[in-house]
């Protein structure tokens, strides 16, 4: 069974040189944003991608869609290579992205109706297969009169749904949602999430949900992957990872989430120190500066990704299945 989307050893560097220095062999100094990322997304699967600032989660999403070039590793979509060695055409047709700021991701001087039907024009879809803007709006629970509005005239929630509607126009196989609940009130977060996860049942859609909202991902995702400073530190089925996190960072992250129940108030801090800047990434294991169980060699030797159980991957020298 081949995965819908497979990343193998992907790394992304940001070139820092400009002008003449960029002509140097190797392209001059580079800033590493992601290293050795391997991830598979199956059909009709919902994968959660968790990370804080500097984790590279947005970079990863953009690299997957070809918006940022990758510097190493391979990517495959529906079995065919994409990336520097392949084209992104098939990917762009069958995968869609919903950006973090929904209003900003809609071209400000185009009306909603034109934006919704633009994918059909871009991919030259025959008229018979196109759906009207009104239909697309109805699918996400919005009224047809929004079609004549400009993006600046929509509320955040409406804009988010318009973005989902546009993403659905081409009936994609994969949707990448970057922070779909950011800025949304708790009482309406469910609307957008339920809309997207419901598509798994109706369309067989796979979802990659990027979020820092662990509590939400726990309920909604099948598998979860955790990033820290550009490295994948843990991956596995959501329930198993939450029940028994293997990586110290995952454990700290779960323990740090503020609890609404005052009886489960924390007495102490789960994690100390600041997140290091990507410009000064720690050597060895990137987490060792804040790790409660770090040993001496953690500062010098980079850990490899190990499979401790079927589907459970962790990048840590000391992690063990209990």
């Amino acid at each position, binding site marked *: 069974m081949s995965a819908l989307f497979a990343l193998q050893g992907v790394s992304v560097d940001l070139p820092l040189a400009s002008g003449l220095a960029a002509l140097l062999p190797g392209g001059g100094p580079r800033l590493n944003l992601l290293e050795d990322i391997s991830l598979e997304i199956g059909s009709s699967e919902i994968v959660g991608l968790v990370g804080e600032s500097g984790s590279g989660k947005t970079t990863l999403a953009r690299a997957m869609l070809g918006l940022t070039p990758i510097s190493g590793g391979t990517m495959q979509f529906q079995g065919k290579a994409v990336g520097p060695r392949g084209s992104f055409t098939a990917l762009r047709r069958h995968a869609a992205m919903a950006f973090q700021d929904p209003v900003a991701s809609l071209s400000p001087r185009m009306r909603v109706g034109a934006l919704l039907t633009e994918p059909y024009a871009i991919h030259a879809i025959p008229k018979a297969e196109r759906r009207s803007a009104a239909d697309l709006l109805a699918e996400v629970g919005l009224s047809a009169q929004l079609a004549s509005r400009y993006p600046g005239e929509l509320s955040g929630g409406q804009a988010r749904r318009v973005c989902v509607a546009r993403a659905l126009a081409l009936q994609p196989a994969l949707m990448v949602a970057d922070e779909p609940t950011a800025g949304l009130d708790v*009482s*309406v977060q469910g609307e957008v999430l339920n809309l997207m996860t419901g598509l798994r049942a109706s369309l067989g859609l796979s979802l990659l949900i990027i979020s*820092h909202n662990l509590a939400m991902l726990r309920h909604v995702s099948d598998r979860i992957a955790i990033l820290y400073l550009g490295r994948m530190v843990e991956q596995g089925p959501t329930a198993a990872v939450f029940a028994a996190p293997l990586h110290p960072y995952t454990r700290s992250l779960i323990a740090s989430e503020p609890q609404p129940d005052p009886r489960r108030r924390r007495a102490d801090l789960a994690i100390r120190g600041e997140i290091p800047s990507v410009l000064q990434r720690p050597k060895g294991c990137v987490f060792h500066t804040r790790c409660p169980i770090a040993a001496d060699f953690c500062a010098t030797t980079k850990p490899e990704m190990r499979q401790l159980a079927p589907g459970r991957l962790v990048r840590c020298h000391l992690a063990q299945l209990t």
Partner: protein
Amino acid sequence: MSGGLLEVEALSVAYQRGPGPAVEALRGVSLSAQTGEVVGIVGESGSGKSTLAAALIGLMAPAAQVTGGSIRLRGMDLADLSADQMRALRGREIAMVFQDPMTSFNPVIPLGQQLVDYQHNLQGPSRAQKRQRAVAMLARVGISDAVACMGRFPHELSGGMRQRAAVAAALLMTPSVLVADEPTTALDVTMEAQVLHLLRELRRDYHGAIIVVTHHLGVIGELCDRVYVMYAGQVVEQALVDDIYHAPRHPYTAALIACDPGSLARLTPVLPTIPGRPPDLAPPPKGCAFAPRCGLAMDLCRTTPPPRVQVSPTQSALCHRVQG
């Protein structure tokens, strides 16, 4: 509860936005805060919580008008103060920590100098002493290299450090009331945990009241003693934090808690929501503002404003369906 440190009584604030009826952002809001307690104000978009925070520190938008009620600090009505008196009050008595740590500080002045400037209200200490206080406060809020930090510019610090520096700046003014408006919303989870931990520790030594305004139930749960729940410009429920979570009486409070994924005990792939939207407040609805979205609504709810029912000495709810 009278004689408290901060007493807001039946405060009403309206914004005039063009022709037509004004937006009544706050409608008869009452709350109090005593020395030594942490009070939480929780609400979603349109609840009026940020207007309330702005009103407390007297920094509301020019278009906002107080149409009723009062804010009293130690019995003194803030509306009676002149602009100069209010300015003197700000900082010395009421200080604020804002949501966005990036814009809390002037980007072109070193942090140390700003922290010293923040103490301008204090008559006693010399400039050198103020520097020392600033360094001590930075260390107190958990910034490791406090002396070096004094010479840095705000953009050289991480978001978590900036927010902690903002807390330090607020505390340097030794206010009686510290208002924190969404203090951790812009921070990562691990940074958020640290700032919450800091605030929890500070209250041990801090002789004043802390008011936390947020939409995040987790922050309320981790930090507050008493909670006011706001909806559509009104306080719909107030209670001790434990009762808010374990024994909410107002349907909105119960629904809000039920929607928070952190409080769902069992795995729920289809997340609960509260259908509908908050009402337009220009003009506000005649009956209960939550009625259109409430599962318990009766006809009475739609026509008549609900009474404030005192369920216990520490808990009350604005609802027709609640028995005292």
